[in-house]
């Protein structure tokens, strides 16, 4: 892969010369993203979209104020002219100017081995068709199979006014399958996705048929299953469910912008116990092939492995340059933007609870009466209170340490901080999930992972017919 260099030295120097004197900090961010999405539905290739999305964002900092302009493609002149007109009033503060001139730094984390052009559109469509066939061959009563395959190449070029010039390239593939099976009059749905920062070698690494069959299996488990009971139960979340819980229940609360503004339950808790001693939570941006990885973040800071919680003690947060400055610490390479038209904010990358020492099978055996969750859907969290809601895809009752019948339609409710403190066991395995995280209208690709864990108690919401009549407060 070659670095993405849309502006040569003279060009970006000229831009800086005309705009930067009135500001403390200036940055040019150029992005070029190209991709292809195939959607296979109703037994045929229903939708194919090919795109090119390219543009520039110029960001200027003056004290605490950020001024930002963005425009598609390379129409820098339009931005520069706008800034020139507004030049008065924002005086530059005294800062040390570093005179070191660097070449473009380009050290991508995930190098692709097989370019996207190595397979024709027909060949790619054929793979989706085959996955659809393999599901229908194995399962009866298939109402719908929807397969979504996306490939993309994101190239960024950042010039900061201390003359750091960085280029980074992140490829991306996601393969997602949604299966609906009939269950009498009703319908049961299963969803499974996999992906990461790969080229077409993805199809050699991952057997996409397994993704499809797993989605179908998750739906099939719900056919004929009883509705989930309501109440408070110990919950085992299997590593196969991935890290949705840690991402939603705790991850957002550890983004420094929310902490700094007082919108996180974790504010002021650095150095304090926020989780059980068995829990270590990290966010690692340097895992090759993982969906949230990058060599540099969207402000040009090198990514790293960030230890957020260590053996239950809160150690740190996910930072951008701005939050790091405000909280008197170093940025962590977690500043991300959905595209050139957005401002960067602290985001997760690949967030996980580290594997522990407990045997996953023993964890299940230790539960007298509870719920085993093997697959999760989406969720929502309020980072101020830490309250969350998750939808469960595949779950079972546990009785006397044994996995019993499957249950359907469950949701899990709880409070992130309480859950972390109530993690009683942490397995020695690890399972990943891929997805797109939304925050303030910006979606970024992420992955999350967890070992099998036992949570002392969660509220399980379901549709059990046995609801007690109440005495209201």
């Amino acid at each position, binding site marked *: 892969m070659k670095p993405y260099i849309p502006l040569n030295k003279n060009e970006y120097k000229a831009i800086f010369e005309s705009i930067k004197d009135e500001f403390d900090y200036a940055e040019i961010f150029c992005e070029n993203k190209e991709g292809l999405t195939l959607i296979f*539905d*109703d037994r045929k290739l229903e*939708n*194919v*979209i*090919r*795109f*090119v*999305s*390219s*543009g520039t964002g110029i960001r200027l900092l003056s004290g605490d*104020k*950020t*001024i*930002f*302009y*963005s*425009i*598609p*493609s390379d129409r820098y002149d*339009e931005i520069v002219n*706008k800034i020139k007109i507004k030049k008065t009033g924002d005086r530059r503060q005294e800062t040390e100017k570093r005179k070191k001139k660097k070449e473009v730094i380009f050290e991508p984390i995930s190098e692709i081995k097989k370019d996207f052009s190595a397979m*024709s*559109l*027909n060949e790619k*469509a054929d793979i989706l068709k085959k996955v659809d066939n393999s599901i229908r061959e194995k399962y009866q009563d298939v*109402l719908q199979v929807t397969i979504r395959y996306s490939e993309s190449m994101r190239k960024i070029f950042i010039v900061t006014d201390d003359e750091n010039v960085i280029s980074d390239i992140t490829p991306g593939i996601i393969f997602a399958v949604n299966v*609906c099976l009939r269950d009498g009059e009703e*319908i*049961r*749905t299963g969803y499974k996705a996999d992906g990461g920062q790969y080229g077409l070698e993805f199809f050699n690494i991952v057997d996409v048929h397994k993704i499809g069959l797993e989605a179908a299996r998750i739906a099939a488990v719900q056919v004929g299953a009883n509705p*989930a009971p*309501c*109440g408070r139960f110990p919950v085992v979340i299997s590593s196969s469910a991935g890290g949705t819980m840690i991402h939603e229940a705790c991850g957002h609360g550890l983004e420094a912008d929310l902490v700094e*503004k*007082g*919108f996180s339950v974790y504010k002021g808790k650095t150095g304090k116990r926020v989780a059980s001693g068995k829990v270590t939570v990290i966010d690692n941006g340097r895992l090759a092939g993982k969906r949230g990885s990058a060599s540099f973040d969207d402000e040009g800071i090198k990514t790293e492995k960030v230890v957020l919680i260590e053996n239950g003690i809160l150690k740190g947060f996910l930072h951008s340059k701005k939050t790091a400055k405000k909280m008197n610490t170093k940025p962590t390479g977690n500043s991300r933007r959905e595209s050139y038209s957005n*401002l960067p904010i602290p985001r997760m990358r690949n967030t996980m609870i580290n594997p522990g020492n407990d045997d996953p099978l023993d964890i299940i055996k230790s539960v007298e009466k509870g719920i085993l969750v093997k697959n999760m*859907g*989406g*969720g*929502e969290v*309020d980072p*101020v*209170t830490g*309250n969350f*809601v998750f*939808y469960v895809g595949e779950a079972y009752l546990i009785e006397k340490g044994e996995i019993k019948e499957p249950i359907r*339609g*469950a*949701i899990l*409710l709880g409070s992130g901080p309480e859950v972390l403190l109530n993690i009683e066991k942490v397995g020695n395995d690890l399972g990943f999930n891929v997805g797109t995280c939304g925050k*303030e209208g910006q979606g970024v690709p992420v992955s999350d992972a967890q070992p099998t864990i036992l949570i002392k108690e969660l*509220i399980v*919401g379901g549709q059990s017919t046995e*609801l*007690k009549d*109440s005495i*209201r*407060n």
Partner: protein
Amino acid sequence: MEFEKTLKKIKDYGFEGEIYYSVSKSKSVKVNEKKIEEQRENIDEGIGIRVIKHGRVGFAFTTGNKNEDIEKTLKYAMEIAEVCESDGANILPTKDECSLYQKIDKQKQWFEPGIDNLIKNAFLCEEIALSLDSRIKSFRDIESSFTHFYSHILNTAEVDISGEGYCSILHITAVGEEKGDRQLGFEVEYSIKEELPDAEKVAKKLVSKIVKKFYPIELKPGKYNLVLSPFITAELISSFITALTGDNIYKRKSIFVDKLDKNIGSRVLNIVDDPFDYNSISLFNFDGEGVPVRKKYIIEKGVLKTFLHNKYSSIKLGDRLTGNGVRAGYRAIPGIAPIHLNIEKGENNFESLIKNVNDGLYITELMGLHTIDTISGEFSIGASGNIISSGEIKKAVHKMTIAGNIRDILEQIVAVCDNTEYFVSGVCAPSILLEGVSISG
């Protein structure tokens, strides 16, 4: 930009085709603690090209407006069309189908508030919110924005329509604190008039929302009568609207399959798609394919009157066009969605309803709505709100779960109030009363 030339090229290659061009220019400011945090100006511009040959569709889009980018995009779209499967319903709307556009006359004059007025409005909102209640402590976001947008659709079947409009939005998210309990609240208002959203109104609604949330308790499970806030009514109804779109109906991926002209809800439920509502945010008299929009009842007195269609689904189901081919800008092909969803107001006065309801809960938040299964209708969601006791909205409650089926919920609507509010999501709704809903926690 050479759209006519591009259309001609499309025809020369033996395709039918559609060009969707849009540009939106927005300015926004974010303030906090009486200082300007961010000042932004964005231009989002791009072109989406859809081509069809023998029922095979190809689509590609590009940002910007350069001719060489348009050419490359056209090439990609044609390559894709060669590979896709043929479907006889892939037909573009024609000039005849797109000849009767009803006037939408909501914006008679150009409006440009300028960054300074956006800043002033944001500061005013912050100031008022802080002055209304000392428990309002800090703000996550106070954002005041203005967008001007323009769209142009042309196709080889001689459809050629364009429109422009503007919209201002004021958005505020704040945290309130009372004796150690912290609660988050937000409020968003828009204006399509020649004035910015009313900062005082936004501040008052925000504060009123937050102060109702302090010290929530957990409720014991049971059956309750739920009064939904207008925002929650809008959210709930919107959450299953995809079950009424033509594509999900012909694929039989909906609880409303085979339910046309049948009773699907309470007699007091009337839902209309009305692009011409004077206060609604819909500003174009055409949908994302250039088809004229029109007002129509989706549900009338509980009876399902129509599904929503784009051209493709209308052909699949043999229904007339409804002008609901909504697209998320130039980056997508036309999907299907309401233009402006109006859950029609009823006759009940909200205050009287609250006074007279027994075992009542006032619901102000729902979590997990996006996971509603529109195929089975089943849902399991989190809820928060307030207990209604002695005719008043009182103690806050949280961590409730409501599980059930949309089919039942629609039957359980027993009253519709007259306190309609308009939301930036393109929906307006009043409070509604749901009888006998099971809550667990």
